[in-house]
């Protein structure tokens, strides 16, 4: 049996935080992002209000999700597409495998899609004998490494160029190079032919437009454009929360996604697909399927307090600014979605009992909430998860500790006495391996406490 998620987390986080060079590398890699994000944000006439508009667009869409999904389905079918509904990961995998089999397909090219990571699609496709290739550079690298993405927008940001060069040398037989440009070109050349030969293209979806039945896909490299242009069949896997009401909501959401997540004015390619190739169009797939996935998103929807977590447009901004993420990295989370948004939603998607430790592993600094372009109340949701966990299955020792604490702080004299005793005992406590003091003292000192407390002095001083 694999270790419990919490134990694994503690182990991995300890290892990651002990790796100073790697933490420095991550900070350095994000330095350019902060600079360009600030330049782009400054171009907004009012960034904070633009966040309001984006938040409202998603709030309206999610709070009328049933109606909007039905509208999307109707319009998408009118456009000539096929809609499938999947209650869970197994159902989604079965649907996609079915489409691949029916199309007599052999090879599949994929553009970046975290939802396919969520349902572990690649393993399922490979088990059925389909050749699957990730075409996004970062995903391609991670696929070669047999590793999940480190960051859901920047999949291989933890790797240095020499590691990538070595990887390419091993798998593609290319000579070593320390040029990111040359490494990118190696992948470009390698993948070109695979695009041309693939039978099926699988993508995700950034937005589903209810009004027009279009699937909107955002990317920088052009791999998704190729994935949706060349193969005979296009399958897009989308969480049900991706739906938005109007086409022109994108006039707000697309630039904000790019600016918040990557410091760009717009991501290089933002493409809307409405069905397969039309009569009179030069190219495009013969068939276009959308698979709408629930997989416990409705459980999150049923919690009105945290429903806004479904507004997420997966820009990655909250990871980029998160001091926890920057210090422990993406793998320690052990989740499909890393960082603050992952810590918020994973307990809903995979169970609070096993995943609440992620909500605890936060100093609640709020950098995520401040960065989120759609104003998700991220760090406060961590507090709410903690509350829910205590209510649902809190431990007795923890409950006793806090009850006792509450009892003492309700009694000023007792509190004062406790304080005195604590101060008197402090020199000794420093050397006793008490549960809360030891982890502190290992890396930090405690202040001396020689003087009388404030309340003892107050009477005198404030007279």
């Amino acid at each position, binding site marked *: 049996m694999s270790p419990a998620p919490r134990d694994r987390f503690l182990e991995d986080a300890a290892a990651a935080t002990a790796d100073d060079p790697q933490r420095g590398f991550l900070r350095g890699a994000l330095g350019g992002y902060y600079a360009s994000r600030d330049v782009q944000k400054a171009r907004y006439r009012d960034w904070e209000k633009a966040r309001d508009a984006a938040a409202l667009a998603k709030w309206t869409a999610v709070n009328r999700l049933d109606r909007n999904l039905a509208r999307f389905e109707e319009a998408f079918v009118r456009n000539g597409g096929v809609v499938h509904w999947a209650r869970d990961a197994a159902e989604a995998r079965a649907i996609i495998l079915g489409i691949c089999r029916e199309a007599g397909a052999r090879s599949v090219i994929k553009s970046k899609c975290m939802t396919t990571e969520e349902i572990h699609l690649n393993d399922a496709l490979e088990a059925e004998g389909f050749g699957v290739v990730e075409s996004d550079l970062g995903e391609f690298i991670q696929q070669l490494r047999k590793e999940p993405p480190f960051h859901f927008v920047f999949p291989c940001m933890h790797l240095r160029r020499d590691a990538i060069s070595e990887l390419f040398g091993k798998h593609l037989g290319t000579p070593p190079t320390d040029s990111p440009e040359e490494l990118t070109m190696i992948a470009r050349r390698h993948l070109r032919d695979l695009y041309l030969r693939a039978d099926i293209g699988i993508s995700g979806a950034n937005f589903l437009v209810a009004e027009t039945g279009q699937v909107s896909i955002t990317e920088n490299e052009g791999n998704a454009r190729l994935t949706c242009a060349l193969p005979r069949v296009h399958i897009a896997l989308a969480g049900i929360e991706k739906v938005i009401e109007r086409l022109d909501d994108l006039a707000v959401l697309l630039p904000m996604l790019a600016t918040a997540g990557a410091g760009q004015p717009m991501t290089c390619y933002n493409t809307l697909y409405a069905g397969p190739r039309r009569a009179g169009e030069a190219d495009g797939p013969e068939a276009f399927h959308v698979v709408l996935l629930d997989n416990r998103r409705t459980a999150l929807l049923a919690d009105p307090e945290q429903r806004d977590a479904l507004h997420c447009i997966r820009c990655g901004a909250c990871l980029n600014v998160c001091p926890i993420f920057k210090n422990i990295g993406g793998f320690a989370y052990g989740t499909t979605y890393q960082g603050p948004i992952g810590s918020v939603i994973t307990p809903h998607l995979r169970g609070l009992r096993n995943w609440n430790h992620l909500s605890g592993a936060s100093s609640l600094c709020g950098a995520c909430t401040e960065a989120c372009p759609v104003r998700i109340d991220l760090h406060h949701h961590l507090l709410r998860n903690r509350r829910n966990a205590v209510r649902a299955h809190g431990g007795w020792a923890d409950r006793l500790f806090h009850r006792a604490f509450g009892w003492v702080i309700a009694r000023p004299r007792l*509190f004062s006495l406790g304080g005195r005793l604590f101060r008197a005992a402090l020199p000794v406590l420093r050397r006793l391996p008490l549960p809360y003091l030891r982890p502190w003292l290992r890396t930090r*000192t405690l202040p001396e406490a020689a003087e009388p407390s404030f309340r003892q002095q107050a009477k005198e001083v404030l007279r």
Partner: protein
Amino acid sequence: MRVDLFIPCFVDQLAPRVGLATAKVLRGLGHEVAFREAQTCCGQPSFNSGHWDVAREAALRALDVFRGAEAVVGPSASCVAMMRKFYPEVLAGHPRAAEAADLAGRTFELGEFIVRRLGVTDVGARWEGKATYHDGCHGLRELGLRREARALLGAVRGLTLIEAEEQETCCGFGGLFSVKYPMISTAMAQVKSDALVRTGADIVVSSDPSCLLQIGGYLGRQGKAVRTLHLAEVLASR
């Protein structure tokens, strides 16, 4: 104006000088300063640990303790944020929710009170040397305070303010987080403290005593000479 002090429990017990400095600064500005002895802890440790029932009790007590106060001023953005933002949250739907909202409107962080409420930036302080300022996250993001402490420090005679890199990065304290996830908390302290030390400042100033506990504790273990001081202590020096 009569100002009621709101002294965080660990300032009371471990850093009373911060409370004394707060009183001194406010009196220096001509206000009457009082301390209501029934106050203890705002309940944040339990709130942050998910024990909202305990926090709710603490909130209800605080409503009684500070009943009728014109202005409640505390030298801790974190504890003020507990009162202002989270008491209303734990008392949502409670019969006394309106009282919590009312108390929230009367509670201020020290620098916020002096600059925003009193409209003062020069409190007549003098401190010779180079200082750098650490923004506590609660002040920064729960209370929206950025310029207040800087305006006050800017007016201190003899003091040169040097801004650090990682200016808005968390120090990693986070209450019980610091002992439940010590490795992450320490890594954060390291990033923050290194940046503060790189400024070459003699002192690190903050409006949040809990951040100073963390930063000071880390710097202490590292044997660094940089001192940590609360904003009130700088403002109280002559």
